[in-house]
């Protein structure tokens, strides 16, 4: 045992360092996973729609890329963006970029997601993230929260849709700006943006 003691100490130290690193990688004291850095290639994933039919993200992406937006049925901020998200989906589908909504709220079941989309006229694909696995993987914390991926699934933008819940007061359309730059083959100049939104209701 004695001769293995230094090895034991080394392994124990490494374990402590590793645990500290994991703890420090969160964005707060909630142990929420940090979002992937801009430029990270996102692994494809599958989620069911509100009817239970599974889709991979790649299968829903457009020929030029995809926008993933975490949305909610009850969050007033997310609901304030319904018309803007629908218009965004229509405007950019024609340009080869599809919008995919994801509902990760444990408090909002698939049936509610479906009826909400019908009631609010949301025609883009909406997936149900049971157990908030994809919200965890992407480090999503609020609704609405957008991610722009190019054709190689590389993350180019992560953040707000624009800078005002009230459409009359918008002075910065960050998400559209990122999409236009991506389509123009330019580097995205503003790769994120903070805005107030409702916390995603995760499983406890």
């Amino acid at each position, binding site marked *: 045992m004695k001769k293995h003691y230094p090895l034991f100490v080394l392994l124990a130290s490494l374990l402590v360092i590793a645990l500290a690193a994991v703890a420090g990688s969160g*964005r*707060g*004291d*909630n142990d*929420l996973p940090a979002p992937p850095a801009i430029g990270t290639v996102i692994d494809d994933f599958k989620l069911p729609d509100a009817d239970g039919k599974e889709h991979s993200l790649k299968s829903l992406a457009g020929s030029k890329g995809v926008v993933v937006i975490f949305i909610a049925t*009850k969050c*007033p*901020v997310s609901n304030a963006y319904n018309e803007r998200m629908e218009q965004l989906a229509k405007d950019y589908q024609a340009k080869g970029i599809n919008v995919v909504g994801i509902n990760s709220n444990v408090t909002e079941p698939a049936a509610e997601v479906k009826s909400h989309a019908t009631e609010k006229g949301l025609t883009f694909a909406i997936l149900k993230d049971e157990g908030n696995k994809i919200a965890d993987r992407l480090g999503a*914390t*609020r609704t609405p*929260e957008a991610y722009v991926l190019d054709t190689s699934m590389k993350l180019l933008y992560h*953040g*707000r849709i624009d*800078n*005002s*819940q*009230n459409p009359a*007061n918008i*002075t*910065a359309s960050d998400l559209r700006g990122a999409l236009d730059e991506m389509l123009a083959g330019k580097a995205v100049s503003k790769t994120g*943006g*903070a*805005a*107030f*939104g*409702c*916390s*995603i*209701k*995760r499983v406890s």
Partner: protein
Amino acid sequence: MRLSILSVLLVLALFAGITAPGQSNGTGAASAPEIRLIDLDGLKKLLQRDPKDARPLLVNFWASWCDGCREEFPDLVKIDDDYRTKGLNFLSVTVDEVEDKAVAAKFLVEMKASMPVVLLNVPDKEPAIHAVDVNWDGALPATFLFDAQGNVIYRHFGKIKPEELRAIIEKQVMSAK
């Protein structure tokens, strides 16, 4: 006749109860806290620590439209009640729009809240969010505890865990003495 007097007293008692919603705990403190409007500079100033003030600063961001914020608020009122005299400086920041100030005020009355409350009145929220904590993206509710040097020593996005927060406040309050 005796029944009539009792009825009148009962009606008066009920009326008194209805018209005094802010009367909370027999201390006489009652009306809604004043909600002061602040801009970005005002927020930064509030977060700057006075070198002479060693009290830990607890800041909670909320909005009247935010379910989680409304649900956690009673716990925050209790924390304010329990720790204010022990040396906790508590600031409540609503991010409601200015036109919803009355809604926020009504909520504070319902909550029997008496801590200082400000309304963040900025055209673009992003600089304000980053001024508080670069690790915050704006998810509400959000709660931060700053030490005397202005370092964030606790942050929580989503509803607070009261016992966890109390333990950290207790530790900070004791070490600030």
